[in-house]
């Protein structure tokens, strides 16, 4: 069971917190939301989910 | 004369300050003016507005029910306030905004936000660009008085850039008028 990062763009307020603290630096902001530059590199550490004030980014279990 | 202007957008775009400067400019031009705004936490996320009434006689009721001029810097705020505008009214919006409205004759679209970026390197002066545009729509206010108020009200050190943004707004308007002619 793996976990992948999911983004709920409608809730993202673009604070940049997840971007800053992603240890592998794969997140980035655009005009509207945060997005994942390279989801392959995600190590599923969950730091983005923990610190996102708006629940707009999180890890989801995938089979 | 009586002119009712609503400046709308999202919180943080500085439209309250723009409204205050406009009202102060009016007062310096020996007119009466009142300025009001929407407050509160709910205003944070949603559409925020600042309203200015300018008149050469006493102004009593301070709220605007049917604005003569509506400025919108966000789509959300336009959607919310469009319905209030009189058919004979004027709408000023940023170029990024879609205006689906046939009834209102005077619709002005300007690259307000982009112009700010051009002048200031960021969108923070969009309010001043917009003010430049508005200054050209309200004849009775002396543009110099708006500038004086602006110099007094903006953070120390940013006066020049704000004036530049303001003048950029004037320019936008005048260019478009020429284009229309």
């Amino acid at each position, binding site marked *: 069971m793996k976990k992948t990062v999911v983004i709920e763009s409608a809730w993202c307020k673009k604070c940049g917190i997840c971007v800053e603290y992603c240890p592998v630096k794969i997140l980035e902001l655009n005009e509207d939301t945060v997005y994942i530059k390279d989801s392959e590199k995600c190590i599923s550490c969950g730091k983005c989910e923990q610190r996102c004030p708006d629940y707009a980014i999180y890890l989801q279990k995938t089979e | 004369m009586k002119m009712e202007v609503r400046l709308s957008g999202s919180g943080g775009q500085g439209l309250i300050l723009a409204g205050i400067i406009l009202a102060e400019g009016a007062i310096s031009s020996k007119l009466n003016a009142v300025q009001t705004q929407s407050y509160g936490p709910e205003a944070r996320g949603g559409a925020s507005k600042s309203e200015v009434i300018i008149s050469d006689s006493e102004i009593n009721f301070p*709220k605007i029910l049917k604005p003569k001029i509506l400025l919108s810097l966000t789509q959300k705020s336009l959607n919310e306030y469009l319905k209030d505008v009189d058919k004979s009214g004027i709408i000023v919006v940023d170029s990024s905004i879609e205006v689906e409205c046939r009834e209102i004759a005077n619709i002005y679209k300007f690259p307000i936000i982009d112009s700010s970026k051009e002048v200031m390197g960021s969108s923070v002066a969009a309010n001043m660009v917009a003010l430049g545009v508005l200054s050209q729509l309200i004849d009775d206010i002396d543009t110099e008085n708006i500038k004086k108020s602006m110099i007094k009200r903006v953070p120390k050190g940013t006066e020049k850039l704000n004036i530049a943004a303001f003048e950029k707004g004037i320019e936008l308007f005048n260019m478009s008028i020429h284009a229309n002619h």
Partner: protein
Amino acid sequence: MTERTKLLQGNEACVQGAIYAGMRFFAGYPITPSTEIAELSSLLLPKIKGKFIQMEDEIASIAATIGASLAGYKSMTATSGPGFSLKQECIGYASLVESPCVIVNVQRCGPSTGLPTSPSQADLMQAKWGTHGDHPIIALSPSTVEETFELTVKAFNFAEKYRTPVILLLDEVVGHLREKIEIPKAGELEIVNRKKPTGNKDEYKAYEYCEDFVPPMASIGEGYRYNVTGLMHDETGFPTNSTSETGKLMNRLFDKIEENLDDILIYDEYKTDDANILLVSFGGMCRSCKDAIKKLRKENVKIGLFSVKTVWPFPEEKLKEVAKNIDKIVVVEMNKGQMIQEVQRTLGKEKDIIGINKINGEVITPIEIIDTIKEEYLRCLVK
């Protein structure tokens, strides 16, 4: 624009007026829509050797305000509904110990937390009846920014002159409105300072039953060493259980207000001379009334406005006089019907008295007033 012509918010004009009147102490606790009063005080007072303190809550704020007043300072606190409710106990204290001070309530829509950013005028009755026990009170309510300045000065003057707390009842409409104001020059408006004792320090009676009902007031530290208490007290300021002393004290407290109504009552008439319909209103709603009157007058409706500035004590006699030849009275207020009760009591049942009220956080618009007038008085308008 001259130096003295300014664009100010009602809340800002309140602070400017207060400082003009001599305020040198402000204690407060932030609450929408009054917060700007604290904020501007914190900025301006230190520059003129004044004292600003943000206390831990509204009770502490009024307590500190009274404390500073006893120490000789002209002092003020500001709040909105929830905080005004909390201050009630100490308002009674200020009244009984005769400590001059100004309490600003920028009304917002209630009850409870309500709609914190929406306007209302529903604390009118509370301003008079909010604290327990009988006590006199003065409350003023301005309808423009300029008037806010002037009535704040008046509030301090009354507080000092009559040794009493004065309530400045703003509403969000006026408090948050920016408009033109001509700041008076120094000396242009009268400034009153509390009467000070002059006689022998040992014989000083802080609560003397004197002729004008207002005993001179010594400040803490001036050598008079008197006693202040919220218990019933005799002329010397010491607690008493005597019902006759209590009666004398209470009567003097009421007398000092009631015997000076001529000085205290402030009101305005607008196009009342030939009116057969009279609007009665106060605070921000006078503005809607005036616009409605202007429009109705154009349609030849004879309508005028009695705008009440001293809301407490209520100007009963003056209202009677103004309404003498008018049968139709319309009380316009952003509440469920509070001032109308005073109007009903004052004018009795011969008059046709109706209210235009709103309690949902919206202001009453001129159109709404016009519509009501037309609906209610169609006949009389047609004639």
